[in-house]
C-alpha cells in the first residue's frame, strides 16, 4: 500500500476507537460520581432541609430513579448530543461549557505560546557551548520551572505583581466596570475585533499574570526537550556527515539538526495542549479565572453530576481530537514513522 493509504488506514483505526474511548470515559465518570461520598441534595440543601423536602427535590431532579435507569437516560442523551441540565440552576450544561471553555482555551493558547517561545529560546541558547554557563542556566531553568508547585508560584507572582506593585489585576478575566465583548468568548479576539481600546487592554491586563505564570511553568519542559533532542541530533551521523561536507555550524544546526529535534517537541506540544484543555486548575483557581477547570472544581464540590459528566466528556473528546491530530501531523512530517 502507498504511504497515503497507510496514513488513512491509521487515521480510520484511531477514529474508530474514539467512540469506545468516550463511552468508557463517560461511563467511568458516571459511576465514580455515584460511588464517591456526598450527595447533590445535601450539597444543594445542606443539612437543614426536612426529609420530605429532600425526597421531593431528589424526585424532581430524577435522582430517585434506579442507577441503571439514570445511566440509560444519560447515555441516550449523550447520543443525541445533549449533556443535560445543571442540578443547581437547571442551566443547560452546553451553556455552562460554552461560557467557560473559551476562557480556558484563551488562557491555554496564550500560555502555550509563551511556553514555546521562552522554552525553545532557553533550550536553544546553550547549544553553542555545551556545559557552558548558558547551557547550565538553561538546565537549571528547566528543572526549576518544572519543579515549582504551580499553586505556590501563582500566589507569589500574584502577590508581587498584583498586590505589592499593583501593576496588574489580582484575578478575574475582565475589568468589572467594562462591558465584556460579545462574540466567540475569546475576549482578546472579540475586543480586538470590536475596535480594541479599553476592553482589549483590560482583557490583556487580566490575562498577563495567569498566562505568564502558566507559560513559564510549562516552558521548562520545552527547554529540556529541545536541549536533549538537539544534543542527540548534533551527535548523530547525518550531522557529522554534514559537517564533514564543510557546511557552516550555523547551517548544520538550523537546517539539519533543529528540524529533527523539533519533532519530539511537537509531540510534547500536543500532550501539553491536551492537558491545558483539561485546564490548569490551580492557575484558574488562584487567579479566579472562570475557565472550565474552575467550573469543574465547583461542580464537583456541589456534586452537580450533569455538569461534571458533561465537562469531562467534552474535555475528553477534545483531548482525543488533539492527540489524533498531533499523531497525524508528526506522521506527515516524519517519513521514518511507519504504521
Amino acid at each position, binding site marked *: 500500500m502507498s504511504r497515503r493509504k497507510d496514513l488513512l488506514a491509521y487515521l480510520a483505526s484511531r477514529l474508530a476507537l474514539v467512540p469506545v474511548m468516550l463511552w468508557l470515559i463517560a461511563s467511568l465518570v458516571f459511576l465514580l460520581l455515584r460511588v464517591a461520598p456526598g450527595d447533590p441534595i445535601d450539597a444543594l*440543601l445542606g443539612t437543614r432541609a426536612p426529609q420530605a423536602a429532600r425526597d421531593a427535590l431528589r424526585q424532581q431532579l430524577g435522582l430517585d430513579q434506579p442507577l441503571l435507569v439514570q445511566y440509560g437516560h444519560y447515555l441516550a442523551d449523550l447520543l443525541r448530543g445533549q449533556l443535560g441540565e445543571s442540578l443547581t440552576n437547571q442551566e443547560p450544561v452546553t451553556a455552562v461549557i460554552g461560557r467557560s471553555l473559551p476562557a480556558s482555551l484563551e488562557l491555554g493558547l496564550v500560555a502555550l505560546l509563551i511556553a514555546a517561545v521562552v522554552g525553545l529560546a532557553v533550550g536553544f541558547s546553550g547549544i553553542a557551548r555545551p556545559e557552558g554557563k548558558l547551557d547550565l542556566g538553561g538546565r537549571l531553568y528547566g528543572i526549576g520551572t518544572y519543579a515549582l508547585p504551580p499553586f505556590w508560584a501563582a500566589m507569589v507572582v500574584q502577590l508581587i505583581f*498584583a498586590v505589592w506593585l499593583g*501593576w496588574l489585576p489580582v484575578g478575574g478575566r475582565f475589568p*468589572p*466596570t467594562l*462591558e465584556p465583548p460579545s462574540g466567540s468568548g475569546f475576549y482578546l479576539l472579540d475586543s480586538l475585533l470590536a475596535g480594541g481600546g479599553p476592553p482589549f487592554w483590560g482583557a490583556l491586563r487580566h490575562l498577563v499574570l495567569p498566562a505568564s505564570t502558566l507559560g513559564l511553568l510549562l516552558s521548562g519542559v520545552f527547554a529540556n526537550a529541545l536541549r536533549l533532542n538537539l544534543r542527540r541530533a548534533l551527535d548523530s551521523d547525518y550531522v557529522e556527515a554534514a559537517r564533514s561536507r564543510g557546511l557552516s555550524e550555523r547551517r548544520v544546526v538550523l537546517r539539519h539538526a533543529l528540524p529533527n529535534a523539533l519533532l519530539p517537541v511537537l509531540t510534547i506540544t500536543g500532550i501539553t495542549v491536551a492537558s491545558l484543555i483539561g485546564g490548569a486548575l490551580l492557575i484558574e483557581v488562584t487567579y*479566579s479565572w472562570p475557565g472550565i477547570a474552575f467550573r469543574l472544581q465547583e461542580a464537583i*464540590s456541589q456534586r452537580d453530576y450533569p455538569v461534571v459528566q458533561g465537562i469531562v466528556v467534552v474535555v475528553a473528546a477534545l483531548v482525543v481530537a488533539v492527540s489524533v491530530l498531533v499523531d497525524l501531523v508528526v506522521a506527515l512530517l516524519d517519513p521514518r514513522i511507519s504504521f
Partner: protein
Amino acid sequence: MLPLVGCLPPKPDGELVVANKSSLDSVDPVDVTTFAGTQLLSAIGDPLYASDPSGRTLPRLATALPQLSAGGRIARIPLRRDVRFHDGTRFDAAAMVFNLERFRALGKLGYLLDGRIETVRASGPYEVELQLKRPYSALAALLSSINLTPVSPAAYRNHAKRSLANRFVGTGPYRLAGYTPQHQKLAPFAGYWGEPPRNRGIHLVTLSNSTALFGALSSGEVDVLLSQGLESDQQRSLAERARRGRLVEGRGPAVEIGYLTLLSDRAPLNDPRLRAAVAHSLNRELISQRVSFNMRSPLRSLVPPPLPGAAPPPWPAYQPERARALFRQAGYCKGQRLSLPLTFRSNVPADRLFALTWQAQLQRDLDDCVQLDISGVESTTAYRQLEKGAFPMILLDWVGDYPDADVYLAPLLACETAQGNSCLKGSSVSFGSFWSAPGLQGQLQASEGLSGRARLAVLQAIQQRAAQGNAYIPVWQVAPRAWAQPWLAPPLFDGSGRLVLQALQRRPQP
C-alpha cells in the same frame, strides 16, 4: 509590561466594586441558597419584612406587621401601593400570591413555607391572606427571608414552573444590569419606591481565594470586601488597618454559630456526665483568640445575640476542675484516659485550627483524663453521614434562614419520635446528635404560638434543657464584617447579616 500598567480602564464615577468569595449559579430566589446569592437578592429585591441590626422586624413591602385572626391561624398582610417592578409593572397582592405559590412549588427552601402555610390568597388588591397550619408568632420574621422577594409575574410568566437563572426582575433599589456567575452589575432602579441608592451602581465580583480577595482590597482594585471566605489572620490584618485609619470597617449582627454535635445515643457520649465534662473542658476564650484572633466571639447559647432568647447564656463555662470531676465520676482519669474522636470539616480552615487548638488545650488541662483524636472529612461527605450517626463529635456551623430564635433551636432540637432521651426520627437525627428530652418537642411547638415575654420564657427554658443535655455545645458566633477603602463611609449591615449595598457612599467631606 509598562504600557499595560498604564492602561488601567477608567472607573465610572460613583460606581463601586464589592468583592466576595462565592460565585453565583442562579439569581432566581427559588434557587438561591448561598450567602452570595442572598447578598445579591437583598440589593435587587425587597422582602415583605426586614430585620434591623437590633433584631426588630419591620415592614418593607408590607405596610404593617401581619394581622392575625383570633385563633392565630389566619394572617392578613397589607401591602404597599407605590411599588413597581423593574419592568414597570405594578406590585400587588396577585403578584405576591404568584411569588409565594411559585416559591412553594419550586423553591429549594420551599419547606420554609410548606411547613407553616396551608393556603395563600389575595384578600384584596393590596392585601394577602395566609392560612397557617398552626399559629406562628415569628411569621413576620419568616416573611423577612430574602428568598421570598417577589419577582414580576409578567417577566416570569414562562418561568412559573421553572427557574430563571440569569435574569432578575424584582422590586429592589437596584436592577440587575449584567450577570455572569463571577460578576453581577447592579444599576440604580429609577422607579424605586424607597430611598434611592447612595451610589451610582455596584459591581459584585467573585475572587476565588482569600489571598486574591485580600490583595484586591490592598491594591485598591476593589472598594469593599466582605469577610466571608477570608482567613482569620487576614481579617485581623484588615481590622488592624481599619484601626489605623487605612480602611474603614463595618460589622453586622452575628447570624452564624459554630457548635459541636455530640452523638448522644451511643457510647461513649451517651453518658451525660461525659458530655457535661466535654462542655466544661472547652476554653472558648482561648480558642477564639488562637483560632480567629478574636474575630469570632465565644458563644454559650445556640441562639446568637441580640435575638430574643439568647440571654442569659445557658451553656457551662470553662471549668477544667469541674470537667475533671465529671470525667472521674464516669470512670476516667484514674489511669484510664478517654479517647474522644473529633471530626472537623477538612475544607474549612477554621475548623482544622479549632481541632488542633482544642486538642492542645485538653492535653494541657486534662491530659490524664481525655485525649482528642482528630480527623478531617470534606463537608459534603460529613453532612451525608450525620444522620447515620457516623461522628461521635463533630464541629459544624449553622445560619438561620431568618433572624429568629426558632430557626436556631427547632432544626437542631426538633424530634418527631423519641424514646427517653434518644431521638429516633426528626431533625435532631439529621443533625447528628440523636438527642431529645421528654416534653421538649412540646415546648418547641408551644413557643411557635406564643409571643412577647411568654415566648421568651419558653425559649430560655428550651435552651436551658438543651444545655443540660449537652448534645450540642456552642463554640463561637461569627459576625459578618466588611472593609472599605478609607474614602468610603463605614459599611452598614442589616439584621440578617447582609451588607446594605445601597448605603455604600463616599465619606462626607468634613
